[in-house]
């Protein structure tokens, strides 16, 4: 620490002002890293895909139902990968939406304070488990259990992968939903209780409708998570592009395809190498749309009351 005399002297003041300016510039530069990351992602995906789309017409890319870029008879139709992604995401939502909403209603409307405070962090651990571990779980535990009920189920299937992804996004869905429900003002609940409604009636007929945009946001952000999930599907759903919406089938998703190509040794600049950027562009586009809708909905419920 400098002496007080120096701190208030003219040169000391000037030094501190200049230092403050410099530090502000440094901090701003750190903030800009986020902006540059986004720009770099968009630039890299567009740049590498542009060379891909110089070879493959966009019409073929969007309409062909075969995806075999690494075969001699190459087809570049993204539809099978999109079908795989849609199917696993739907299965995941069938798990995450009911479970996540129930937990959110319970935590927000029923649970005593200390239960909520101790359960939430534990629940969030479900989202913290490394996805490769979930992949192992889907392959060696969930699928064999499913095979008891469905003996014909192949070892690689989208059902097991989707169920596990669903579990993984439960804490995500429940925490955004709970936020939304707690944003519903107290007086609405009290009005309902005053009319003689029980907690469950209040929750289902007052709080849930009141928090509707927030619940929608939670589901949409959950979808975005499920769409981007990679390792579970790469391990447990098989990596064969397969144009089907039947969750009992093995299939590749957009993300699994990127992993599959990255595992091999494709030369930089080859069409296979470029195809993962085209696939990544589609993935980025899908999640971006869901994220924008989801975030604008969360902003809405935060402002509504």
């Amino acid at each position, binding site marked *: 620490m400098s002496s007080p005399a120096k701190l208030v002297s003219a040169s000391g003041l000037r030094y501190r002002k200049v230092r403050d300016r410099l530090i*502000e510039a440094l901090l701003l530069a750190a903030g800009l890293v986020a902006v540059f990351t986004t720009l770099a*992602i968009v630039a890299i995906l567009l740049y590498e895909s542009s060379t891909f789309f110089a070879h493959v017409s966009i019409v073929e890319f969007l309409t062909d139902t075969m995806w075999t870029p690494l075969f001699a008879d190459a087809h570049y139709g993204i539809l099978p990968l999109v079908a795989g992604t849609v199917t696993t995401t739907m299965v995941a939502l069938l798990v995450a939406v009911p479970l996540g909403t129930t937990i959110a209603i319970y935590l927000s409307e029923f649970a005593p304070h200390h239960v909520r405070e101790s359960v939430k962090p*534990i629940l969030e651990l479900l989202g913290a488990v490394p996805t490769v571990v979930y992949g192992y779980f889907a392959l*060696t535990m969930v699928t064999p259990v499913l095979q008891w009920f469905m003996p014909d189920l192949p070892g690689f299937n989208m059902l097991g992968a989707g169920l596990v992804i669903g579990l993984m996004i439960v804490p995500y869905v429940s925490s955004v939903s709970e936020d939304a429900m707690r944003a519903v003002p107290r007086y609405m609940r009290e009005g309902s209780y005053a009319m003689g409604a029980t*907690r469950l009636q209040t929750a289902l007929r007052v709080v849930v409708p009141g928090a509707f945009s927030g619940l929608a946001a939670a589901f949409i952000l959950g979808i975005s998570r499920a769409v981007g*999930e*990679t390792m579970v599907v790469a391990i447990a759903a098989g990596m064969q592009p397969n144009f089907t919406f039947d969750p009992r089938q093995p299939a590749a998703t957009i993300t699994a395809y990127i992993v599959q190509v990255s595992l091999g040794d494709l030369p930089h600049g080859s069409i296979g190498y470029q195809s993962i950027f085209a696939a990544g562009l589609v993935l980025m586009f899908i999640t*971006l749309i869901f994220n924008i809708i989801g975030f604008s909905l969360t902003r809405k419920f935060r402002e509504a009351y």
Partner: protein
Amino acid sequence: MSASGAAAYLSGERLRRGVQRRKVLDKVFVLVGLIVMLACLAVLAILFIDLIRDGAPRFNLDFFTNFASRKAERAGILAAWVGTSLIMLVTASCAVPVGVAAAIYLEEYAPKNWFTAVIEINVTNLAGVPSIVYGLLALGLFVYQFNLGQSIAAAGLTLALLILPIVIVATREAIRAVPNAIREAAYGLGATRWEVTKDHVLPYSTGGILTGMILGLSRAIGETAPIITIGALSFIAFLPQSPIQSEFPFISFAWLKDPFTAMPIQMFNWVSRPDQAFQANAAAAGAILLGMTLIMNGLAIWIRYRFRKKINW
């Protein structure tokens, strides 16, 4: 319902039964809620127990000191855990300073204008970008444009970008929790903005910043997809060059450019082998990985709890 019917309803048995039924439903829902929650927690427990049970035959010292091998019983995770540690070192030393600085800027310095809004939107948006897209960014940018190759530096930087939003959001929350009165008092004594930040805001938000850092690293440690995309090797029978040298200048950064493997990659490699014997290796690696994430998360929860209790504004 006629007026007399309504009166009968209100005074009669039916009302009581209706209320009774709703009260029962209320109780039933409490039960359902508890069961669903416990089921989710049970899954977590089953997952952990399953990994430990399957991996039990591999839990010995050799597993930690052996390289990968074609024989399942002799294969270990030496290269993987050394790789993961070095990657985490790079990730932490990039993501933490940049993330904390960005958060300080957004909370303490940024004027309220469209430009700040752009940065904020970017941070929110980056948190939602799938991790594999970061892998593609790294492949195009770090590996080929910056010519880092398939190295520890490339992997560490990739994961640093990936956890940057987590660190920024956690730090912002911690900074926002510092009451304004403290800032005003410091300004009142003639402190500059940086002095207020450095001497008051940052020390009081250390707990939150640490929590964010640990949560970010626990996310990074298990990330598999982005480093597969960069091209991590799964079979490596040597260690990166040591950061500590016996000769001057004693510290070397040559390891940054070395090829690597990491825990999640090693586990993925073992999972995807058809040979059943390797599943035990995968389970053991998974148990260690899961154990590390659980410990880190537990630590974060504990730190948050401690600091929250200690601080009394």
